[in-house]
């Protein structure tokens, strides 16, 4: 039924995303990795929906909507940071430092 395979793929994609977020310093790449993680989750939702009904697919639509909004806001932030600092390297962005 391909559920196990789909879940395995999802796990791989998610791990790639996590590793990307943790290791890369470029904000755009990190952002893409976050999207990757979202899509990995979407994949597992779809896979599970085969077993447990359509609720999972509803969630996917939700996640995609949120992801779209997040992409818009996130990119906007990145652009405005770039305008201020001429860089999107996270090493230099520590506004939250206590």
């Amino acid at each position, binding site marked *: 039924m391909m559920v196990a395979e789909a879940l395995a793929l999802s796990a791989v994609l998610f791990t790639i995303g996590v590793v990307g*977020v943790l290791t890369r310093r470029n904000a755009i790449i990190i952002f893409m990795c976050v999207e990757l993680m979202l899509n990995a989750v979407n994949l597992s939702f779809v896979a599970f929906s085969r077993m447990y009904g359509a609720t999972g697919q509803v969630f996917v639509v939700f996640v995609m909507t949120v992801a779209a909004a997040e992409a818009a806001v996130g990119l906007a932030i990145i652009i405005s940071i770039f305008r201020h600092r001429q860089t999107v390297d996270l090493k230099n962005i*520590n506004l939250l430092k*206590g």
Partner: protein
Amino acid sequence: MLLLQEAAAAGAHPLSGSIAEWIWLVPVFPLIGFLINGLLSLRTAAHIGPKDPTAHHAHHDHAHDDAHGHADGHGHDHPAVHPYAGIASLVGPAVLFASFALTAAIFLALSGAHAETPFIKTLFSWMPAGNLAINAAFQVDQLSMVMTMVITGVGSLIHVFSVGYMKEDPGYPRYFAYLNLFVFFMLVLVLGANYPMLFVGWEGVGLCSYLLIGFWFSEKANADAGKKAFIVNRIGDFGFLVAMFLLFSNLGALDFAGVNATASQLSPLVVTAICLFMFLGCAGKSAQIPLYVWLPDAMAGPTPVSALIHAATMVTAGVYLVARSSVLFSMSPVASLTVAFVGAITALFAATIGLKQWDIKKVLAYSTVSQLGYMFIGVGVGAYAAGVFHLVTHAFFKALLFLGSGSVIYAMHQAYHHTGNHDDAQDMRNMGGLRQFMPVTFALMWIATLAIAGIPPFAGFFSKDEILGAVFARTHGSTLADATWLGIPGSALLYAIYAIGLVSALLTAIYMTRMMLYTFHGPNRTGDKERSHLREAPWVMTGPLAVLGVLSLAGGWLNLPTFFPAGPVQALHHWLEPVTGAAALRITNGAEAHLEHSTEYILVGLAIAIAVIGITIAVTRLKPAALVSKSQSPASEGIERVLEHKYFVDEAYDAAVVQPLVGVSRTVLWKGMDVGLIDGLMVNGSSYLARGIGWVGARLQSGQVGTYAWVLIIGVLGVLGAFTLR
């Protein structure tokens, strides 16, 4: 119409409906005077706006203090007469005359009515709260009317004198405003029908005293003296307040009628406490040990003020209070003996200081303290009429002495003013031989001196003798004699008081004669240039002096002794009987306290002998001719130095009370407790603690999103691991 209704409500008092209904106008007249003069002084003061504020030293008195050594002479050239001086000199005395006239009318109505109970005129309900119901009410009775007569009568004379004395002062309307306000409060004090009303006047006169002592406030010494007077008085007021609290919590009443009616319910301990606290108030207001220190300093005020407030009226308020509360005091022999004993000690103590003072007003100030002590001996031993009698005669002769000294100082100051001299115009060493320049003042002041020294037939002889006789009479067969006071038998204490009274009388005769000798006799020490400018004061000043002279001469007729063959024997005594008679009888166990005539003759002879001896000692031992002016006098030594510095009591108070209080407040309470402990340790300490915790927490916040993500992942893995392994 309204008046008639109230009269009906007051019951069938013989005075209701009479002129006594208008008693409230008596204090209101001076109040009106205060308002007019106050507005005058404010209005002009606001417009004058002195460009050079230090130029206003055109006054006559100086506190004879090193502080005034600075060059302030240029102000003497053109005394700035106030633009509204004319209105002020009209309004100021006129309101007093109006009050005096009305008082005299009410006095006559009272003497015709033979009222056994006080007539009370209630104006409105003042402080109704809970069980407390205090009315704004005036009380017309024999005691309050005697006091009112003295206040308005002597007050009028002093107001007239002031017209001459203060005319050239730039603060002239302000002076009359304060003086009128003082009379208003003094009248409220003696006319008030309950203790809180009395207290209003009590504090009010203290306020006016404060304002008038510090009238020339530009010199620190004067402002200091005013403040000292107010604060020392407040210490006494504390006692008065506590006495009122005790009365209210035990009797539920604070009006004289209510207290007198229910006083018998009080336990002996409570009544003693009430009387002692009340006497603390009297000691403050009437300058008795230990609170007398303010009165000598109060001489920094204008001299007529010293005459009115610090001799004739305000300082006798304590005596009035004891007489007014005679019912309470007579119930407590211990408190009465305390009053008498403190009075005696004060009389002696102040008299010794008076022996070595050089400032003419300081001599009179200590003399006042001493005479007040006499009055307290009188009211302390239950001879309330005698105490009040001495109060009245003292008002006459001491006002005369002060005004006379004012006239002298005025003359001295005018002379110095003409020559630009800056010597001390109040120091007797700078005077001498003034009798040829001011014969009227000279003669009148000798009358007053003989009166205070106790030479018959002058007023002081009768009143002083009355008091000493009363002390002697109570050494046997009175509640005082039977009581013990701090382990001393009452009769022994009374003998001691009598002896102290005699010694004080001797000293009084000596220091008063000394003052007269140094001022008016011997060679003149003012200096050659100044001598030609010495003049007698104008009639507006000598006129009141003459009236007071007559009163000092004849005041004794108010209350002639019992052995006197003719005349109104014991008139004041009988007059006051409705107010103080019952209390006086309680002290003497119900019997009229009269001595055998033979004993009385001996006592009188002794008193006269003492006075004569005193004067003789002074005349023979003192050498006015040997005096040199103040600037050339050597500093005194030994016991003289101690006396001249008033036993260093001021210094002792300063070191023992004032400095520690201020020091502890500043270093321990403020810097230590407030700023250090509460603010430093607790308040800011807690903020530092919070900040410290925050600083530690902040170290975890690197601001690197990557770090946060690592922490997050590790956390998630940890949680997942924990779940899996469970």
